[in-house]
């Protein structure tokens, strides 16, 4: 449904998206995970025909965006990162207008508008102007405007930013519902937990480049079955590094106050890890054992914290 090949987009000297390729399938959620400025929105803009790629190609619903734009665009539903709604038009009128923009009309349009209003929880405020809505309500309307015409492909650019935790769960539900209907969903986020919860396949993107891609399991396997141990306290860096190497572990992150290592059979090796690290003269305040997650993968791949 989505096919991105060697996509590149530059702004002057800055390469915002650097030769990335991926495919999104029907009935599945593809995640683009990366920190702010990684190039996620730029990628979405190229996919939705808002930006012309510097190089590479984008095919959407079987049509090339540069040569058959109108056909390609008609299969897309878009939820931009920044709100894109008419604040001086009621929620119902907003939905009806964007539905009509994709060719819906008559009863079908009315029925879809009613359905979406219910699903995004705005049915009782449908006639009010979004000017009077809370931030979360506007976000939900922005979301609804993207899927009122039942698109085959849904592009979601950080849809949960600025949404309260409860609405967020509700939004996940809506995204899964779309997936179940057979929609191909592209979901960008900088939250690990969201990507882990929602996505069937993932590409981790940093500085415009894909640094890892695959299913969640495949990405976890990059650790070769290792577990993650996180310590906080105060550490003498060279000594700690040597100690970890002697334990056959891998240092993922090391600073004066934190240490993260990947190690086989974490539960069994924890006592010896604590012992050897303490032996370097380090003070340990807190220790945590976990399965490898995207956060640790990102750390392993880029050497930096995703949240930073």
């Amino acid at each position, binding site marked *: 449904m989505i096919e991105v090949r060697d996509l590149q987009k530059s702004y002057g000297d800055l390469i915002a998206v650097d030769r990335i390729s991926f495919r999104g399938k029907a009935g599945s959620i593809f995640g683009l995970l990366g920190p702010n400025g990684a190039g996620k929105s730029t990628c979405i803009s190229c996919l939705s*025909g808002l930006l012309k790629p510097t190089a590479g190609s984008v095919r959407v619903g079987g049509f090339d965006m540069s040569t058959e734009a*109108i056909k390609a665009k008609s299969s897309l539903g878009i939820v931009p990162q920044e709100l*894109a*709604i*008419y604040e001086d038009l009621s929620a119902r*009128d907003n939905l009806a207008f964007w539905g009509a923009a994709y*060719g819906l009309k008559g009863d079908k349009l009315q029925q879809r508008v009613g359905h979406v209003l219910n699903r995004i929880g705005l049915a009782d405020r449908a006639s009010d*102007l979004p000017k009077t809505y809370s931030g979360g309500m506007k976000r939900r309307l922005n979301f609804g405007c993207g899927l009122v015409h039942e698109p085959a492909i849904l592009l979601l650019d950080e849809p949960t930013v600025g949404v309260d935790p409860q609405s967020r769960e509700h939004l996940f539900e809506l995204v899964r519902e779309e997936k179940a209907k057979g929609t191909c969903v592209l979901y960008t986020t900088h939250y690990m937990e969201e990507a882990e919860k929602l996505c069937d396949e993932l590409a981790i993107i940093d500085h415009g480049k894909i640094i890892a891609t695959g299913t969640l399991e495949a990405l976890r396997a990059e650790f070769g079955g290792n577990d993650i141990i996180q310590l906080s306290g105060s550490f003498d860096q060279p000594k700690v590094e040597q100690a970890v190497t002697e334990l056959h572990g891998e240092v993922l992150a090391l600073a004066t106050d934190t240490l993260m290592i990947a190690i086989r059979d974490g539960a069994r090796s924890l006592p010896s890890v604590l012992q050897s690290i303490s032996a370097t003269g380090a003070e340990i305040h807190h220790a945590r054992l976990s399965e490898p997650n995207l956060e640790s993968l990102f750390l392993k791949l880029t050497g930096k914290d995703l949240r930073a």
Partner: protein
Amino acid sequence: MRFIFITVLKELKRRFNDPGALISSIMIPFAIGFLIASVMGGGGGSIKAGLLVTDLDDSFISQGILSALGQDQVADMVTLEKISLDEGERRINEGDGSAHLVIPAGFGQAWLDREEIALQLTVNPSQYVSPRLIREMLESLLDLGDYLHKVFGDELKIISQSVDSDGLVGISTADFSANITDKVSGIADLVFPPLMEVEDVTPEPEGLSVNMGLLMFPGILIMAAFFAANGQSSNFWTEKEKGTLGRWVASPNAFSAFWVAQWFTAMALTALVAAPIMLMGFFYFDISFEKYLSALAWLGLTGPVLFALLSLIQVLAPSRKSGSMISTLLMFPLLMVGGSFFPTETMPKFISSIAQYTPNGRVIEPLKAYLIGEHGASGMFAELWGILLVTLVLVLLTGSLSARKALA
């Protein structure tokens, strides 16, 4: 085509959801019309109100107000008397005079700086009609002032500085508009050198058989088109800022359809805003109502040529701010020369011959000729296709330029 229609409906809904703005775009031309009617129209001279005025400000602006109130035709209804503050208060308390107007010191400067300041009007409670008449005239004068400020605030500041420094001629001389224009021509070289060489705009009585107000009426109507044009052309920036333009570009619709829909919206809004103003004017000037629909249709169809022009400017400009600045700077001389403030009949020949090359002039003149009976509807509509074609070309040009802008 269907989607263009839906977009126009959507745009109109948005305007109706902001009734304040819509109503004020009707009221401002109304207020100007009322002022002109009360100044030019003459009529019912049976009431004679006595207005006592204390001008503590004595600025260019306050003198402008006095000048407007002291104008000949108004003088049929109102006798103006300049008076000291104490004297005025004493006399109005004794019931001598209809009202006492105090223009506070600093009024002119406050008005130029858009600071809040009030004119004080004490009315004589024993009289009913005259104080109301005075109040209404003052209010429409202030509305006009408000409008003038919106359009030429900065220019007026320059004028005021140059005028206040060399004193002002007596207030009874000429009418308000001629007065302002005289002052403007004094500093014309500073502001708009080639366009403002207006020597004398006082109507030459011999050549004119029709009512001055009627000659000015189409110029007031074009204000309706101007407001629709202004709002609808800057909507491009609003939609860009609100992200809805992005949704548009991402939707499977030709981008030119966006602009065609904006154009049609400008047509509908022009007609909508003009309809009540035109209705009043037809009543007031006693024009046959058979002409109403064709006059409204003419204005609605051709007026948006201003929208197309402003839209092109907006998409050529790098930002909303510069876009609206250039539009205002261009609109000022265009409205002036095109006969929207002062009828071309009252202008020197060489300026009125420029008028027919301005888009608003091309809209006003055939309408005026139709309203005063110089030609019939077919005469007025003779140039319709020409104007529509020019508008269409401008709209499509705007469309292709702004599409390129959206695809950075």
